């Protein structure tokens, strides 16, 4: 079982905040899931290379040519707070 402090630490890293009873529930769920994925420890993986991508691709290159892109207005159109084409955010604490 992972500790309550660990759950709080992971929540902080994840930028998530939990109520008291949620913390307990997550502690329980995460522990069960981690126990399950820990069964990978039964495998002999000695000498195997990790796979990040299933299909072998060499470096993919293309000419660096300017193309059409979104206008500034379109790029910020979905922002919850926008001023003069910029995203507005609360002050940094």
């Amino acid at each position: 079982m992972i500790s309550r402090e660990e759950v709080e630490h992971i929540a902080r890293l994840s930028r998530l905040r939990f109520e008291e009873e949620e913390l307990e529930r997550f502690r329980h769920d995460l522990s069960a899931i981690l126990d399950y994925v820990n069964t990978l420890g039964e495998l002999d993986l000695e000498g195997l290379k990790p796979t990040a991508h299933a299909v072998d691709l060499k470096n993919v290159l293309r000419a660096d040519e300017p193309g059409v892109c979104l206008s500034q207005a379109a790029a910020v159109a979905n922002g919850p707070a926008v001023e003069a084409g910029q995203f507005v955010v609360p002050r940094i604490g």
Partner: protein
Amino acid sequence: MFSLTARACRDLLGSGEVSSTELVELYLDQVERVDDRVGSFLLVDRDGALAQAAAVDATPRDERLPWEGVPIALKDLLCVEGMETTCASRILKGYRPPYDATVVAKLRAAGLIFLGKLNMDEFAMGSSTENSSVQLTRNPWDLERVPGGSSGGSAACVAAAQAPWSLGSDTGGSIRQPASLCGVVGMKPTYGVVSRYGLIAFASSLDQIGPLTRDVRDAAALLDLIAGNDLMDSTSVGLPAPLVMPTRTDLTGLRFGVIREFLGEACEPGVREVFDGAVAAIHAAGGMCEELQLPSVEKGLAAYYIIAPAEASSNLARFDGVRFGHRSEGAVDLIDMYNRTRSEGFGEEVKRRIMIGTYVLSSGYYDAYYTQAQKTRTLIADDFRRAFGRVDYLISPTSPTVAFGIGERTQDPLAMYLSDLCTIPANLAGLPAISIPAGLSHGLPVGLQIIGPHFSEQGLLEAAYAVEQRLGLSALPSIAEAGR
């Protein structure tokens, strides 16, 4: 009328028997008639679809493109310019993408008409569509059961004849499992065949977009429309050659490997029975079947639940209330705004996966979990490679069970994850795989999964077509017939 394939729609338009407007109205009417019960659609773009159809009808028939005027519906994680796209999440409510996903642009260029956006598990995380923050989708075969997921809306809308075909996405089975549970065809292409540009990312090394259709030939046609290398996705490769309509009717000379690990105790007796019937049908069509062991695939699920959450925790960091979607009000500073926005905006399963992903990537655990999972991925890919040295295709049930009851697995995340036992390994190895209806167990559909080697789409579709002809299944749920 409602058993129409997309090819039949195309032919009716081509011969002038129906107009595109009539066709679109037919489907919109069916949506109106049944969607309060089925719940496939998050958004129905009636006006947009009818305007598109009117434009098609105004074009002389001999000047139209082959698929022009045929309707389609899209899973709500595909960006359509100006059309609300939410991934069924509160955090993206109101988001209107400023651009089309590559697949959407391709379909638009081919003249297809967008009926609307389909329900899904939030950010494609789930196997029952119950994780949608908006609504339930119900299985058209039994409204008390789930349609599967995460592309539950995409599968249910085809089964309920609300659209002739649809697009979904598959990270660990999210096209094939709901296709199986809803009795339609669903295909995940080889990783890289279809561009992911404009697909809102879940786990980037696993995600692929693919078709959900009434039959194998429609799947071939739709995959051919969306496949291709794309400058906007450097992992996209496309297909070695354009797909042609499958015509194969016998399986003489083809070797099929039955994956023994997927027929264990997790596999329901009713599913096993239908699967055995499909194996007999393959034999009858001249194919050879032998049981094979792929010991590593049993660990696929565990590797997946490290890799997918790890990638998701990174991909979903972008939802922070700054550039799009929901922002929490009343925060005292920036970090507080991030915390509140994400805690309010994400649902429980998404938070669970972000937490697991963050944990396995965090300092001190990376090698124990992530590196270990990636090595397991290598082991699985090697097992498949060896198997394809002996047989041409691998087969298994798509899902170990038929559609389960609504609410049955929501309290136990691990029980829910088990739904994807048979589908996950193909994602980890990047292989193409298709699910086709193989029969009914107690009135509920059972799917047959066929997995092929990398970029074997043409052959895989030919084999699936031959099996489909042999099984000859064309049953529809009664709700699809209602409008006849």
